[in-house]
């Protein structure tokens, strides 16, 4: 009880009391159910601060945390044919597209950008699971090709964050043809001698796993990410039996030799800097407050790599 509840007129009072717990300040962890303060959750890259569960993160949020000072420039992706098959299920494909664009504020299911990560020049591509399940259609194919071509032109490594339910059925065979198309993109990088690092995030399945997501030089997955070709439900239907706990999860794939590492999102940036710098033959990264550009890098202890990005973007 304070003076407002006692003295302010009831109508105003009701407004104030409603403001006591606005819904958007808190979100609930999908895993442990704990209420998490929004800003804290965002600062922790959508990883639950109490149980460590990795929730979805949009490509834009990811890039803001990945690139130095959150600064990156988007790489333009050639627009594909719109609705090439005139596809219609219960809804028309263009209507589904517009709904997804409205819901996400994004044009399509992949974002491609260039910039610096711990002063390491890179090209990055991230798939957006919130956009029609991150599905791989012609746009995603074009995005990966554009990313590879840009990386080759700039002689930079490509870091790709995968997240998709698979191919986009509404583009029929043309979505399937993104498997060979994106494979050609990976080959461009390999032939140019540039690292191609795949970060597999929850979920990465179907034709995406069976093409560019499994052709990396290094495969890193986020904890507990579902990574598979055929989904667990399909397999359960085929076999008629329950699958073991943790089947097709990141740790399971690590055990079966399909991944190099399973790394929490909060430690990913530091690890990516370390790996790309070694593969590119660069000096160890400088961490903490970065000296102005031009100063040569000095060796620094690896634990400092997870320090927050520098305030100013490097030139």
């Amino acid at each position: 009880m304070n003076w407002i509840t006692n003295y302010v007129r009831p109508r105003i009072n009701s407004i104030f009391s409603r403001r006591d717990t606005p819904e958007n300040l808190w979100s609930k962890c999908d895993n442990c159910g704990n209420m998490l303060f929004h800003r804290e959750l965002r600062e922790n890259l959508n990883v639950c601060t109490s149980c460590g569960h990795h929730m979805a993160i949009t490509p834009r949020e990811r890039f803001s945390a990945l690139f130095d000072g959150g600064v990156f420039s988007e790489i333009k992706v050639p627009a594909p044919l719109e609705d090439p098959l005139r596809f219609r299920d219960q809804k028309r494909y263009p209507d589904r597209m517009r709904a997804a664009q409205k819901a996400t504020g994004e044009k399509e299911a992949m974002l491609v950008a260039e910039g610096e990560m711990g002063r390491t020049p890179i090209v990055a591509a991230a798939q957006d699971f919130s956009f029609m399940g991150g599905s791989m259609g012609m746009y995603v194919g074009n995005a990966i090709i554009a990313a590879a071509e840009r990386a080759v032109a700039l002689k930079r490594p490509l870091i790709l964050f995968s997240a998709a339910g698979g191919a986009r059925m509404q583009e029929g065979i043309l979505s399937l043809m993104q498997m060979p198309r994106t494979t050609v993109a990976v080959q461009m990088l390999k032939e140019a001698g540039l690292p191609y690092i795949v970060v597999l995030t929850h979920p990465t399945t179907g034709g995406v796993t069976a093409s560019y997501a499994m052709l990396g030089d290094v495969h890193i997955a986020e904890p507990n990410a579902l990574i598979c070709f055929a989904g667990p439900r399909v397999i359960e239907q085929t076999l008629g039996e329950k699958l073991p706990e943790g089947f097709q999860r990141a740790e399971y794939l690590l055990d079966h030799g399909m991944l190099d590492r399973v790394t929490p999102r909060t430690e990913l940036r530091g690890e990516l800097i370390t790996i790309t710098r070694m593969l590119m033959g660069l000096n160890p990264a400088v961490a903490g407050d970065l000296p102005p550009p031009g100063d040569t890098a000095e060796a620094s202890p690896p634990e400092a790599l997870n320090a927050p990005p520098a305030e100013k973007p490097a030139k």
Partner: protein
Amino acid sequence: MTNYLDFEKPLAEIEGKAEELRAMARANEEMDVEAEASALDKKARELLEDLYTKLTPWRKAQVARHPDRPHCRDYIKALFTEYTPLAGDRNFADDHAVLGGLARFGDQPVMVIGHEKGHDTRSRIQHNFGMARPEGYRKAVRLMDLADRFGLPVITLVDTAGAYPGKGAEERGQSEAIARSTEKCLQIGVPLVSVIIGEGGSGGAVAFATADRVAMLEHSIYSVISPEGCASILWKDSEKMREAAEALRLTAQDLEKLGVTDRVIREPLGGAHRDRDATITAVGKTIASMLSELDGRTGKKLVKERRRRYLELGSKGLAA
């Protein structure tokens, strides 16, 4: 004994009647049924023509899966000589869903690789209904490498519902195996031609059908997902496979318009299974002509053009 598809039921009745009449005549020599029987034959033929000239996409899917359709081993037996199967992925096992080996096509030594579905219960189980496991794709990679090193053209015959969705297959890296096989298809500096002889099911088909030239039999299909699978996801009702088959544009005719396939090989009236020899001969002719188109090209040029073919795919759409 002919296997009839559900939409062929009226045909089955007429052909059955003609057969019955002739059987009666054989038992009783005084009966003259020939006039009546040939009338029925004529009627059956008309009906067959009527059914097959306007097959809907779903019916095409059914024909593509017809149990009597010639399969990979039938083509290998008829079109190649000195076929020498090569087995194993050198890692884990030999996958019988994938056949492959050295053979002569005419005089030319080649590598032939394909999915085999099997023709009766025993062989279907043995070949896992044409659904390959990682070992199958890894065997294919090994054979393509071998062909590449010795300058042998590669011929792939695609006929699979898809890669096998099983526990062991997933554990041993089904996705990675498919990805590597597609990658290998895009790397080898020898001619690579592919024929989709039945079902081209999703990633399991792409892993073999990423080629310099792709041909499809008239009633074969090639799709990102089966009509049933698509219906259950997008329509939430697996019985809507007719609509899904329509929407997916999975027929050889639509795929030719989209530039995914270069040639459509005509099938005998009533589908490949009604005249297997004629079908196999037609496929052989197409393979020969596709290979001759690639004759004399250097490995470098082949790889470059193959990659460009896929990079450029998708510039053509379909009008409604």
